[in-house]
């Protein structure tokens, strides 16, 4: 049976300094995939390379181990010695591999739990494998199911709910005050990296314009150019505050610049239109007392980080529920996968049974057609037909059971038969046979009583069938 496997490296096992050595650019992926399926015992393969993970998902050729060769391949593709990355590379097989793929897709294996990016990256990797011609039925089914699991996890748990970084929290809080950010204006005071990020985030969420002000006009101009904003002079601060809806402040000022006297004038001029002040400067730019004004919502860096922490804790809690979903789905997929391995056997068994039944039925029909039969004779013919079919079908397993080479094997075969045909009491007999067999020579093992009974019947039927 072909086996699913995963070989890879992620943020869990290695720092970025190591991960970047094994990373692949998008344009390299098709070549790598063809290399893996062409030169290694791998039937299907997919490669995902993001900033947090480089992983190969694949299906080994029947009966062959693929993880070792893939490990070597990855290292050599990056001109590294396999031993150098042996400790940071991990591999999973079978059900473990399926579970891993499902966990990755559901963002349970992500650095930030519940982040949405990984699903898109996985879809892109799957598409790339499809284009390279290296994805196949098993991998395809696994990935399609993984996307389904990810969707389930997203809708049934709160794993992706709540902002997970400071600038997203700023956007979320602004949405609580204003609802739609369309038409709102953002004022950035100072030029901190975080305020730039937050301003960009607000702009991307629909805010109409960004105004930048700084004590140094050059810096204001530079930042405004960088984030598509408008630079305004520092002296206009009061007027800018009157016009703004969201203020992000991160100056290096020693003393607060957003003071109570200033906001007394500002809020009055605004006629108490709501304004949100996000102060991410340390030391703080805003006096805490300005929060007392009606319609003014003040948040400092601690507030934002507390929200992030609470949201992440909430996600961690949701992850437990998500893990249960993944576990359930893994079990289902594993069962499906295993059933795929025995499909040919099932088909052969059905064909054989149908063959036997057909052959006997033909014979009986022919015999009946040859001359007139009374109803009693017809009934007898049908009974004989049924017995014949049963005997013929049971003949090979009966022989196999009787001719087992060792008592252990006999017991095992008896156990398997009982299991397959739902026979209960015989299991104990089989065990007795095995225990007894330990003290005897091979071949001397007593046939389990129940099996013997059954065989006796079978023999009788065989004799009957022979007549």
């Amino acid at each position, binding site marked *: 049976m072909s086996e699913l496997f995963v070989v890879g490296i992620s943020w869990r096992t290695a720092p970025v300094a190591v991960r970047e050595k094994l990373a692949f650019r998008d344009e390299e992926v098709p070549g790598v995939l063809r290399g893996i399926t062409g030169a290694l015992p791998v039937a299907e393969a997919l490669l995902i390379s993001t900033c947090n993970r480089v992983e190969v998902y694949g299906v080994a050729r029947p009966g062959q181990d693929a993880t070792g060769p893939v490990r070597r391949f990855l290292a050599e593709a990056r001109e590294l010695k396999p031993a150098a990355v042996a400790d940071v590379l991990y591999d999973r097989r079978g059900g473990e591999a399926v579970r891993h793929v499902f966990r990755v897709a559901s963002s349970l294996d992500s650095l930030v739990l519940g982040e949405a990016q990984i699903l898109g990256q996985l879809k892109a990797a799957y598409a790339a494998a499809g284009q390279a011609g290296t994805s196949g039925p098993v991998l395809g089914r696994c990935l399609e199911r993984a996307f389904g699991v990810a969707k389930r996890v997203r809708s*049934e748990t709160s794993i992706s709910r709540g902002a997970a970084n400071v600038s997203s929290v700023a956007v979320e809080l602004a949405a*609580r005050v*204003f609802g739609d950010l369309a038409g709102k204006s953002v004022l950035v005071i100072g030029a901190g990296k975080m305020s730039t990020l937050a301003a960009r985030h607000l702009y991307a969420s629909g805010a109409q314009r960004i105004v930048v002000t700084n004590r140094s006009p050059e810096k204001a101009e530079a930042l405004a150019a960088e984030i598509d904003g408008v630079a305004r002079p520092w002296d206009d601060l009061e007027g800018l505050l009157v016009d703004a809806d969201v203020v992000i402040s991160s100056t290096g000022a020693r003393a607060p610049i957003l003071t109570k006297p200033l906001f007394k004038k500002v809020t009055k001029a605004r*006629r108490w*239109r709501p304004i949100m002040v996000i102060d991410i400067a340390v030391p703080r730019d805003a006096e805490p007392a300005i929060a007392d004004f009606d319609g003014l919502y003040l948040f400092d860096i601690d507030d934002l980080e507390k929200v992030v922490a609470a949201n992440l804790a909430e996600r961690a809690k949701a992850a437990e529920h998500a893990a249960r979903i993944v576990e359930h789905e893994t079990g289902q997929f594993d069962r499906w996968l295993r059933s795929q391995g025995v499909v040919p056997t099932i088909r052969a068994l059905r064909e054989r049974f149908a063959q036997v039944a057909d052959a006997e039925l033909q014979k009986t029909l022919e015999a009946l057609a040859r001359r007139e039969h009374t109803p009693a004779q017809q009934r007898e013919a049908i009974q004989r037909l049924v017995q014949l079919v049963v005997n013929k079908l049971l003949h090979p397993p009966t022989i196999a059971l009787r001719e087992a080479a060792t008592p252990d094997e006999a017991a095992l075969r008896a156990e398997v038969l009982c299991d397959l045909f739902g026979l209960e009491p015989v299991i104990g007999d089989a065990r007795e046979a095995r225990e007894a067999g330990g003290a005897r020579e091979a071949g001397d093992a007593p046939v389990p009583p129940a099996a013997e009974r059954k065989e006796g019947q079978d023999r009788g039927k065989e004799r009957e069938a022979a007549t």
Partner: protein
Amino acid sequence: MTPGGGDRLLSVAPSPAFWVAVGLYAAATAALLLVLAGKARFRPAAVALVALAFAAHATDIGWRGTQHVHPAQSVREAMGLLAFILTGGYLLASVRYRLTLGGAVVMPVALVMLVAARLTPAGEAPEDLGALGRIHISLATVGVGVFALASALSAIYIAEERALKKKKFDAVAFKDRGAPLEPLDRLAHRLVWVGFPIFTAALVLGAIWVSRLGESLDRPEYPLAAVTWLTYAGLLVARQVYGWRGRRAARLTLAGFAVALAVLVIYLVRRMVG
């Protein structure tokens, strides 16, 4: 639709639709509370239950109409209409905003009002109201209903605003992503604008009606109704001229409604005790 006699009118038994509505209101309240408790998957069921309760309530009012019971023939009857307006208004508003908390407040209020309107003792049979009296009660009910909706939104506003100011981001007010503050304030303001002219007309017609009946104006509900009107008039002026909004406006909206509610209770108690 001329009413026969007062006694017959008030003795109409609640319709089966009433009992269905009561059950649906209770179920809707339970579903909304479940959503607030974090079971978001009950949200579609909750909305459906509110809509069904509204439909059952409409059926009940319609059925009473066939029995010659006018929805505004008495304060007791008007309470049922008020609950109906509240539910309808809530349904409309929740098309645009997620108002789970609002629903969890409005639904039980509507339930209590409907039960009070149908199951409390009817008291003495009223005299024939005439067209003027009926229009007065209808308009007053609609006006107070609209104010009630504005007040529900204002109450949510105050709860959310307080939670946000105190940075209690996990407060009940924010469960199930409550409606944002600014749109809540705007919507409440618009509702007061809609309710005010209706309530004014009701007051004027009421005054004419009472003077025609020749009753004295020394009952406490008359000055209280005037206080309600003054409160909302003051609110509109403050919003329009002085730019009042947010918390202050929300408090004044609630204050006005509290007085209107007092008027309603006085009417009802008087009817019950005779």
